């Protein structure tokens, strides 16, 4: 898994703007247009409930949320990283902590101060979108680590079994399992889980790695 490159050209993007003062968003819409990001009239809405989260594309869509509106609805957030389904950029009017907190909770990764200044839009997109992508990358790393942590028990079991069945020490057993992972292109956790499940199913108690490797 490699960290993604920085996104710097937002051409082809689509912006949703959640605000109750659509008229004051002209500067934002025009600035976005210059960057190749389109906003249809129907994409400026008063509540996130008007957006279908399932239809959002994180690689294309950008959501601007006005911090001054009291929107009861929220976007669904991912379980591990608390990430919204597409990058969110907060529009800040009132700077009281409650309003800022609401934007942070919505997953905003960058902000624009109202009234919006057109030259601030490109840097806000650049930071917001790339920060979102970096968070998502870290989230996948974290999910992967979690999955590995859950598989730890099977790895320990598999090492102990291989040690006792082949009469080797833990380093040699680990090495055997690792080589097997490489030939079968599986992760250590998946391989060990399969081995443990298999031997539990067959009750044979024999983990014949040598034979499997030869295949």
């Amino acid at each position, binding site marked *: 898994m490699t960290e*993604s*490159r920085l*996104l710097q*050209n937002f051409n082809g993007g689509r912006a949703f703007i959640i605000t109750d003062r659509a008229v004051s968003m002209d500067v934002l819409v025009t600035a976005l247009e*210059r*960057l190749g990001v389109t906003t249809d009239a129907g994409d400026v809405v008063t509540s996130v409930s008007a957006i279908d989260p399932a239809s959002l594309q994180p690689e294309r869509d950008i959501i601007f949320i006005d911090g001054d509106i009291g929107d009861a609805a929220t976007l669904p957030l991912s379980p591990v990283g608390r990430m919204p389904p597409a990058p969110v950029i907060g529009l800040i009017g009132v700077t009281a902590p409650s309003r800022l907190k609401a934007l942070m909770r919505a997953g905003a990764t960058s902000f624009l101060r109202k009234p919006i200044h*057109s*030259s601030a839009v490109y840097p806000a997109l650049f930071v917001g979108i790339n920060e979102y992508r970096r968070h998502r990358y870290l989230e996948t790393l974290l999910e992967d680590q979690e999955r590995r942590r859950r598989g730890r028990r099977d790895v320990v079991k598999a090492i102990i079994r291989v040690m006792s069945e082949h009469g080797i020490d833990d380093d040699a057993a680990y090495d055997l399992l690792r080589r097997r992972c490489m030939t079968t292109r599986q992760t250590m956790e998946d391989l060990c889980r399969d081995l443990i499940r298999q031997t539990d199913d067959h009750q044979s108690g024999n983990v014949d790695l040598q034979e499997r490797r030869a295949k």
Partner: protein
Amino acid sequence: MLNGALLATQEVNESELDVRINPFICNPGGDLAQYAAHALCLLQQGIRHVVGCYTSSARKEVIPLFEKHDGMLWYPSHYEGFESSSNVVYTGAAPNQHVLPLVEYLLQNHGRHAFCVGSNYIWAWENNRILRESVVARRGSVVAERYFAVGDTDFRQVIAAIIAARPSFVFLTLIGTSAYEFFRHFRAACVVAGIDQAREIPVASCSLSEPELEAIGGDAVDGHLSSSVYFCSIANPDNGRFLQAYTKMFPDGPTASADAEASYNAVWLLARSAAAAGGDDPRGVKSQLVHQRLDAPQGRVWIDEPTFHCYLTPRIGRSNRNARFDLVSEAAAPVQPDPYLVNNSGRFEAAPSPALRLVS
């Protein structure tokens, strides 16, 4: 730059246009700290339109003031893009009108290995980034990227490095005296090393103009590539008239250049828009500006409404012994400005060098 604006001012005042320009000249002398004070002084006198600023750093200094006082800056210099202030009209080239055509030309005609030498500021950094992206996309390489303080003139080390590396070309973003010294020393060092510099390691840049060639002078003046929307050598009647009037007004030079042409165009666009708007109110001028079509020395130019940058015609010239440029490439028609390279760059930054490590 000033000369181009003054010539246009005189022409406007002698023309039938229902507008007269009374130029007020102030000179911050290239000292960044002076720009804001001078701009404020102009704006507070009630001057609404200012033509000028050469470097990006200078422009960035004054833009907030123009926005605050609702004045308009007519910026007549090519620059690195990624900006669009609603109080600025950009009449010089955007990166897709000078950097990208040059990179394209170099990759097609000279090879894929670039050596970048530049002055240490935004213009050089950003141009080198654009070059790197294009070169990497074509599986070429940037052999090295070296920066020098503005005004530095000792290039012995980097010239030795270039001669050792033998790149396909040198991409030069040095400015002013630094650039002139580099051209002279590089040519001399290549002569010593038995290299036909202009043919084997040409130096290409987006800022080299005719007056600068004269400043380089001597044996180092020919064979350099420059990308610009204007060269004196453009053969059309409008340019002929422009050059004749320019030489008459400024017989002692400096020679007309892209910057002179861009400020000349800026003043003409301003005058025509103000005449159409019936006053100098920035809003009125801007709304009329988008309707103007100017037959400029470089050919027809007009303003792109979304970005307030200019449609211009990219050209590439190779300098000759007379300190002029021979055109080697020219766009068929004026090119739409793309200051954010929305239509002219990849979605992602250029691939970084792979971070591979030896695992066993």
